[in-house]
């Protein structure tokens, strides 16, 4: 086998342009497939995490504010929409609802009064079951009136260095707050949101130029629902919408699905491109190998004359194909990884805040699958020429090669 490797190496050295053409085709296919696989999984992981961290099975919003609500929930756009808080009681008694809590959505001013324009969300630290559990994991006490919980991605914009954020004083609408804790990234609007005590949220709108009519305590923006065990959120949501027409009930699946569709389209395009490139690479490798074998027919016939068995000739060609495919696959993974690693910010910019690293085990799996795809392409590309040449009689190969 060492001798076969040596012959393969020498032959590849002889035709570097042809070898690099084949490697290039495989690199293109593998890099695209690898990027598509990592992005796809990254988005799936993000959606899963987002669903888990949303904490609620259903988010109920005013029917006429559906789009605004989606924008706030998904991307953290600063916005305001309200409904009477009395609706929460109606929702709480709806079939299948186990628990509810509410939040109020405000905008801050991007002016001297405030550090930046961000979405401000007031929540009840006693009743809330969406933000509170995460806060209590990090701090021993529920949120105080003068404290803030800050989203993972907005913290840098507010205080500069996240490491020094805890305890930092921030001004919002003329009122001083200190940062109690920072939330883990969710991939959702919470990453760009500042959470505060619900009472403070109401107080802050008094005298604010943004809210000429202050938001009253009987107004809320969203009702968050935890459904009873064994109940399907979709059924509960449909029931709420049917019985309370002024409300729109969005399940966590709907929420994540609505913004993942576009991203999935992008990933689908990448997979299709990767598939096409793989096909192209297969044709390229197959043709170049067929050409190479045709050019080397006399040489391979001579090997047979010198005592090489058919299997040795077959191994020689397949090994050469595997070397090319392996090199192409490895380079493809490296280039794909570089694209993802160095283009992280661009990808995040392109697909919103939905990109999360899919985790090392999946990364390893993607590397192995990409390499396997490369090797299969190489084997398939080399198979026909290998079978053809090894089936010829030595003299026939020599004669055809002349």
């Amino acid at each position, binding site marked *: 086998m*060492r*001798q076969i490797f*040596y*012959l393969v190496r*020498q*032959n590849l*050295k*002889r035709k570097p342009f042809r070898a690099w053409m084949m490697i290039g085709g495989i690199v293109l296919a593998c890099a695209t497939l690898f990027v598509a696989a990592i992005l796809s999984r990254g988005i799936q992981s993000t959606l899963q995490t987002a669903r888990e961290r949303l904490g609620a099975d259903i988010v109920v919003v005013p029917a006429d504010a559906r789009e605004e609500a989606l924008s706030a929930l998904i991307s953290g756009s600063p916005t305001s929409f309200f409904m009477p808080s009395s609706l929460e009681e109606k929702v709480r008694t709806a079939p299948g609802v186990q628990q509810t809590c509410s939040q109020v959505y405000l905008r801050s001013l991007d002016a001297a009064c405030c550090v930046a324009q961000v979405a401000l969300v007031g929540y009840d630290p006693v009743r809330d079951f969406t933000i509170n559990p995460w806060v209590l994991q990090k701090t021993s006490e529920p949120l105080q009136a003068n404290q803030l919980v800050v989203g993972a991605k907005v913290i840098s914009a507010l205080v500069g260095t996240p490491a020094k954020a805890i305890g930092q004083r921030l001004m919002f609408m003329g009122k001083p707050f200190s940062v109690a804790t920072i939330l883990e990234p969710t991939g959702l609007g919470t990453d760009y949101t500042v959470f505060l005590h619900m009472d403070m949220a109401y107080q802050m709108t008094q005298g604010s130029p943004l809210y000429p009519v202050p938001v009253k305590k009987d107004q809320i923006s969203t009702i968050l629902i935890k459904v009873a065990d064994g109940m399907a959120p979709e059924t509960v949501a449909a029931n709420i919408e049917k019985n309370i027409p002024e409300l729109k009930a969005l399940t966590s699946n709907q929420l994540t699905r609505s913004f993942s569709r576009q991203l999935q389209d992008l990933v689908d395009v990448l997979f299709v491109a990767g598939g096409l490139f793989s096909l192209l690479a297969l044709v390229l490798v197959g043709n170049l190998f067929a050409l190479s074998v045709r050019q080397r027919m*006399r*040489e391979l*016939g*001579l*090997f*047979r*004359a*010198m*005592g*090489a*068995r*058919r*299997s*040795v000739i077959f191994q020689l060609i397949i090994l050469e194909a595997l070397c090319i495919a392996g090199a192409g696959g490895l380079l493809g993974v490296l280039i794909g990884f570089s694209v993802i690693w160095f283009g992280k910010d661009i990808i995040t910019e392109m697909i919103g805040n939905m990109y999360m690293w899919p985790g090392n085990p999946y990364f390893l799996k993607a590397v192995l699958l990409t390499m396997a795809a490369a090797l299969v392409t190489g084997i398939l590309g080399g198979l026909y020429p290998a079978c053809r040449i090894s089936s010829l*009689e*030595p*003299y*026939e190969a*020599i004669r055809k090669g*002349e």
Partner: protein
Amino acid sequence: MIQVEALSKDYKSVRVLQGINWAIEDGAFVIVTGRSGGGKTTLLSIVGGLTRPDAGRVLIDDTDIWQLSEPDLAALRNEKLGFVFQFPSLIPTLSVLDNVLLPIAFGDKSPNLEDLKFATSLLEMVGISGKDGQYPAQLSGGQQRRAAIARAMIKRPAIILADEPTGDLDEKTEAEIMDLFQSINGQGTTIVMVTHALDYAKIGKTYTLKDSHLFPYEDSEASPRDLTRGGELRHDA
């Protein structure tokens, strides 16, 4: 000993060899002549296990080589036969020394120090010592042919089959190469050579291939039927 019995071969319905009966004793120097396209190379490649005949048998040391399995036939080519072709047959990506050692690589073992020494001595014998690290493109036609002869001898084969080994060489080099073959034959190796160069007919027993039949050269004007009818086996040394 090589024995050929009732050998026939067609190429695309053209009869190239018909009913050839032939015997070559160990240590013989046999030359086959004939017009171009007359089937000389085909005969040699059938004897060398490179082309399957349509009919007949080839026995080398009483083994019917065309009854052997593919690996066994490959092993026979590797162990017992050495080939020198009419075209430059060195592998361009390998050095001269690697080319010479190639049949060993296709055998049962990797080349060892002893093989290396033998290869070097062969290169010296064929007159191209010092060229072992060079590549075929750096050698002249004659030097390439000498390297190919050294390669044919690396496994110490009992038989060397040479197909027009001097076809594209100048007269001086041709004479040197033929001397080399004579010297190899002098060491006991059977040489079967296809050539146009009738000047060398005196070296060994010469045959001519005409109208798909093989005759001793001196009988070549005789009717083919006289020599092959009845499948008589001719023993020549």
